[in-house]
């Protein structure tokens, strides 16, 4: 089925979700993943045709549409593939059966992703101590989960949040944390070195858009220079992320494409003759990262391959994907 025809069939609210992801009204790797699963669910529910073959093609079309919205965050194709696996690897007798399977699978992903957020919050919160001064960059629901969980456990700490130019997602972090009662101070991205030194930052915690097979973390532009500054000052650098942001593509050697966004995000009114570059992400080398906190546990970044093999190799071998499950504490 060609793109035109798929677009003709796609329900309006699914198009809206795709558009919201593209324009960053829906943003953050976790939210994007859940929104994509939601969109697939809606697309299946709203499909009005009668043929199973056409439904399968149509769903692949919707999947492509969703994946093409943002190139860097692997959570998007991971979520889409997670849901689409049931169509790609199972045989169905009827349209209804296939439709039910997609809806069920999408629900499962959304539920998993919420559980994962809660679980990694619990694990990450154990790393936070009363008296900590924490620096964070951009806005990450995983980081918020860690900090809010720790705060609710009665740990007392302060947070410095970068503004995060060009789109100021730091404002979202500041608002969310302040609403929980956590003391938070906004700082310009250029100030992180002075903030680390003068404010005696004890930990840096950031989220991730993509984790690669060798343990590099692709996250909001600026993350890698904060990691460099933290390394120079011996400050612990922690990445908090759900495992569905680990990229199976990098296992087979694919590079992560860094999305370059519109110059108008940096400079509203263009100045003739002035070029503006606006890469949205950068790669932090594993050497600068102390640990990655996931819902399945903490790993040193260079063990990313272990997680990826655990998650995807088994899955690629068995046609039947194992239902992911957040495992509860075994140490308490």
């Amino acid at each position: 089925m060609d793109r035109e025809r798929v677009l003709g069939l796609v329900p309006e609210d699914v198009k809206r979700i795709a558009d919201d992801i593209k324009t960053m009204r829906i943003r953050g790797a976790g939210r994007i993943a859940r929104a994509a699963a939601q969109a697939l669910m809606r697309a299946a529910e709203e499909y009005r045709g009668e043929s199973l073959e056409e439904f399968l093609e149509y769903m692949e079309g919707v999947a492509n549409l969703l994946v093409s919205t943002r190139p860097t965050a692997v959570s998007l194709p991971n979520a889409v593939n997670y849901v689409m696996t049931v169509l790609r690897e199972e045989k169905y007798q009827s349209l209804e059966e296939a439709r039910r399977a997609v809806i069920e699978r999408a629900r499962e992903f959304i539920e998993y992703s919420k559980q994962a957020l809660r679980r990694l919050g619990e694990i990450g919160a154990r790393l936070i101590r009363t008296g900590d001064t924490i620096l964070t960059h951009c806005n990450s629901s995983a980081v918020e989960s860690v900090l809010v969980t720790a705060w609710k456990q009665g740990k007392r700490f302060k947070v410095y949040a970068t503004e995060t130019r060009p789109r100021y997602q730091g404002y979202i972090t500041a608002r969310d944390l302040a609403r929980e009662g956590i003391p938070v101070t906004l700082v310009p991205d250029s100030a992180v070195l002075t903030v680390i030194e003068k404010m005696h930052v004890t930990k840096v915690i950031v989220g991730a858009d993509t984790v690669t097979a060798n343990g590099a973390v692709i996250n909001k532009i600026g993350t890698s220079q904060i990691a460099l500054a933290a390394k120079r000052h011996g400050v612990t650098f922690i990445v908090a992320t759900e495992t569905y942001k680990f990229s199976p593509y990098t296992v087979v050697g694919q590079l992560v494409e860094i999305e370059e966004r519109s110059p108008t995000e940096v400079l509203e009114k263009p100045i003739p003759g002035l070029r503006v570059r606006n890469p949205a992400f950068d790669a932090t080398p594993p050497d600068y990262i102390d640990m990655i906190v996931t819902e399945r546990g903490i790993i040193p970044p260079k063990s990313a391959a272990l997680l990826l093999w655990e998650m995807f190799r088994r899955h690629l071998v068995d046609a039947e994907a194992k239902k992911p499950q957040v495992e509860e504490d075994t140490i308490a």
Partner: protein
Amino acid sequence: MPEAGMVSRLRGLGATEAAEIVIRDFTRLVERSNTVSELLEAVDYLKARIEEYPFSALLVNVARRVLGSLAAGSYGSLGEARRLVIESVESTLRSVVAETEAAAEIAARRLSDGDVVLTFGYSRSVIRALEKAAAMGKHVRVIVAESRPLLDGLEAAKTLVEKGFDVTLIVDSAMRFFARDATKALIGADAVMADGSVVSRAGSGLLALVANEARVRLIVVAGSYKLYPETVYGLTVESPALGDEIVPEDLRELGVRGYAPLFEIIPSHLIDALATERGVLAPEAVPLMIREIYGDWPPRLEPIDELVSRASKRLLELAGEEVREK
């Protein structure tokens, strides 16, 4: 923490321009002074600006010369005192221009045809160095970080575009991303300290780090009027900072605070070379330059406060003499 009042009024200006504006205001006050007490007010104005803008080596150095000549007291009337002040200001500003030009010329020689220069903030010394390199026939591309919160990098980018340079503007967070495209890093200084460290806009330290990591040479362009000899004796200054004014209203209501330091110190080990009017030197060789300029190492310095009180005393004596003459 000092107030950032004056610094934010001088938003978007390089260190030298900002200090020059203060010095011109001071000169105007001196020119308009009809009584000794008005002249004393002008001296107080200069002293207050130094306290507001503690990193400005130029301001401190001008004050030292002006106050020194007032304290020496080789004048017999208010008119002569006024003339003395104005002459010493003018000769200082002339030497600032000459030193900047010479330092820029030397920095320009360190640039090569095809260089891609990464810079941060607004520095006239850097802009002049780039212009001189272009005049030497070297084609140089520039990558400028916008330099929040004052956006002085954006000002620098505009100026360079007007001068015909190929300029790329990036957010401050993208410095490490673009460091691998750069072949040199160039910044100006607000002050050069006794230990060879350099005070520049907050964010320059990050630039120094990413340049160092990418093995891109960092050159600081600074005339010797940027030397801060008081630091030989352990003077340290707190960077002025913007505060809650950088936070949007709705977030402030939730209790979100703001902190935006305006300057930071770049350790000497991250700086490959200082380009001064006396030549290129390692930042660790700053004591050598102090000896050249002050004739001695350690330099013999009278604290600014003492200079102010000696100059004031001498001016009050002058007022007494004038009263008696009448």
